[in-house]
């Protein structure tokens, strides 16, 4: 009898050795945990910047007057912002990549091209002597001035409408292009103008001047705010929006991508003045860029850039520069 008890006990023990309890190995936990999404770090939204006190509300395009003659490329005076750029051998620039003719990535070559790209290449050339020494950083409308204020880039050229509010965050060069707001709708749409926008969905780019404008001119419209400019064309094509409010410059580019189904309404809604955004504490760079723009206006280089990018839509002449101190020209 004792022997049998022993056998029984050893049988139980033996079975347990083979795996009493469950053989959880943790593999499924480990692999499930590994596939969990990674939490994106939450970005803190900065408070709205205070308006710049020296900004002229009647003409926000007034910028800082050039002081000195332009130094030769590659010979920037030591200690200036331009000298630092020359030393690191590259100009870091914020641009858009969705706006044909201004700054867009050609999907067939992967290169960013356009009027604004030519403009910043001229700036790079004037500083370092090499127009290819540029690092492009694509920016969204909502953060194009923030990256400048944070010094993540040396400057941004991205259809940035000059306003006193934005002057609170960054400094602007003199105006290099004048645009105006217009509406784009489906070709067969019954929307004829701003008065038809009530209760319709209007697409705008997040953080853009169009967003502010829409709230003023059509407060009863439903606003669809998207991150990138081309997202509005998608919204229009997919039927998620009835109209797209933006600068004529972008609208023309969007219309060319879908000429049969989109129509730009002729009514001009508000004028926009583009400036290059530069960190507020880099005044020397603002004056340098203004001096360069002055030279480009005089030599016809700006018109040349307009024509190369915009062809028949190119403006007759570049907008005149305006300066804060109405003193004498150097």
């Amino acid at each position, binding site marked *: 009898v004792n022997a049998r008890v022993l056998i029984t006990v050893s049988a139980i023990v033996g*079975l347990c050795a083979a795996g009493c309890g469950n053989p*959880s190995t943790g*593999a*499924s936990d*480990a692999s499930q945990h590994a596939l969990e999404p990674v939490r994106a770090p939450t970005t803190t939204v900065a408070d709205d910047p205070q308006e710049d006190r020296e900004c002229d509300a009647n003409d926000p395009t007034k910028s800082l007057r050039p002081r000195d003659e332009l130094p030769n490329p590659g010979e920037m005076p030591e200690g200036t912002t331009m000298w630092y750029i020359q030393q690191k051998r590259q100009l870091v620039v914020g641009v858009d*990549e969705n706006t044909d003719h201004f700054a867009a990535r050609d999907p*067939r070559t992967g290169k960013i091209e356009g009027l604004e790209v030519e403009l910043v290449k001229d700036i790079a050339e004037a500083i370092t002597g090499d127009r290819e020494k540029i690092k492009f950083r694509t920016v969204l409308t909502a953060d194009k001035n923030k990256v400048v204020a944070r010094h993540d880039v040396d400057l941004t050229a991205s259809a940035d409408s000059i306003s006193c509010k934005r002057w609170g965050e960054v400094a602007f060069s003199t105006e290099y292009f004048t645009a105006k707001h217009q509406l784009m709708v489906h070709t067969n749409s019954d929307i004829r103008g701003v008065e038809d926008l009530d209760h319709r969905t209007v697409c705008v780019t997040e953080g853009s001047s169009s967003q502010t404008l829409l709230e003023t001119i059509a407060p009863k419209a439903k606003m669809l705010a998207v991150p990138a400019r081309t*997202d509005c*064309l998608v919204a229009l094509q997919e039927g998620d929006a009835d109209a797209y409010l933006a600068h004529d410059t972008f609208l023309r580019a*969007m219309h060319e991508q879908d000429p049969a189904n989109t129509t730009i309404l002729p009514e001009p809604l508000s004028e926009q003045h583009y400036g290059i955004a530069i960190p507020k504490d880099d005044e020397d760079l603002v004056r340098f860029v203004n001096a360069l723009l002055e030279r480009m206006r005089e030599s016809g280089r700006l018109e040349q850039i307009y024509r190369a990018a915009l062809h028949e839509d190119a403006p007759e002449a570049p907008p005149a520069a305006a300066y804060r101190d109405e003193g004498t020209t150097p």
Partner: protein
Amino acid sequence: MATTPGRLRTASIVLVVAIVVLGVLAAVTAATRADAADAVALEATPELLAAQNLYGSLAETDAVASTSYLRAGQEKAAVRQRYKAALRAAEDYLATSAQSAHLSASARRAVHTISQQIGDYTDKMASARSNIRQGHSVGAAYLRQASKLMREEILPAATVLYSHAASRLDNAYISGTSSTEVVLLVIAGAVALLLLLGVQVYVYRRTHRVVNLGLVAATVLVGVLFAWTLARISAEHSALSDARAHGSDVVQTLSAARILNLRAQNDENLALIERGRGEQYVADYTVTATRIAGADGTGGLIAFVGDAARSSDPVGVDAGLGDRFASVMSTHRAVRREDDHGNYEAAVQLAIKDEASAVQGLDAALRGEIERAHAEFDRQASAARAGFDELLIGIPLLTAAAAGLVLFGIQRRIAEYR
């Protein structure tokens, strides 16, 4: 009843009851184990594989799409084929997952979400492609939106399906290796054998007959039934444990590593596509790489498999995984270095050539190891399932025969008292 024949009659009833209890317990335990082994091999594992492959194909689809965007004008027919194959595989695996009879409400919702969103995704990708071909910048917007849909809607739904299948497999393993019934079975077997022995001793003392053939034969049959059942169950137990440790655990871990490898590639591409706005993707890349192989390249999922392989040899996971991962990481660092130094074009070229081929190398190695582990799983799972049919026929026969022999043997003794 205090007479010897009365006691013998009582004893025969007790013995028959004990034998029947043992037989029923043995049959129930064997049937439970057979079902659990079937559930592991025929339902839960294929379901998990389908869920994993669905996730993997979706991740591959998106990684191929972003690579082809970065290639810009250099889209090759082979890349297009890979995109289409991955998408088709995803649709097949989704159909397999949807057919499972055991889907919870949330898993059914996930299937629904995925099948709907895949339609949207392919629509957006088709718009992206035709616009990109014409040189329209709106193509990139369609591509971004498609990728966002994949990352924020489709892949999370695939995770729900995956977790559902993984916990089903866990449960099948637990019921296939639970020891409760086995302990009861061992007690019932011991009781039946002890009673048989006790009655034989009693009969010997009362009748001075050394051998009661009926009782001896019954004892042998009960012993056979008991030993056979225990042997089968413990063989099933160890085969199932091996199927898990060297089979499905390895498959699961390496599949996760494979998915993360593809996700990392997509992160790399998106970081380049977003040009300087891609910090979140670079961060995601780092977390993902850490999950694959730890902070220093010697931990993470790959090490988990290494440990499983070392602890009891068998499948022998290829040590080359670590090296292949290291070469992915070194190309990744090269891409980041070029991009951080403003050499965007060089970074893109590295990403679509060197890094893409390193990623594919790791992917192929992982696939190979997954296949090997899967074969090991199949081998062990069929070992776990083998022999239950015979046992389930044998148990009632042996039980009936043993009970009959007990009645026959004791009846003969009782008859002697008349």
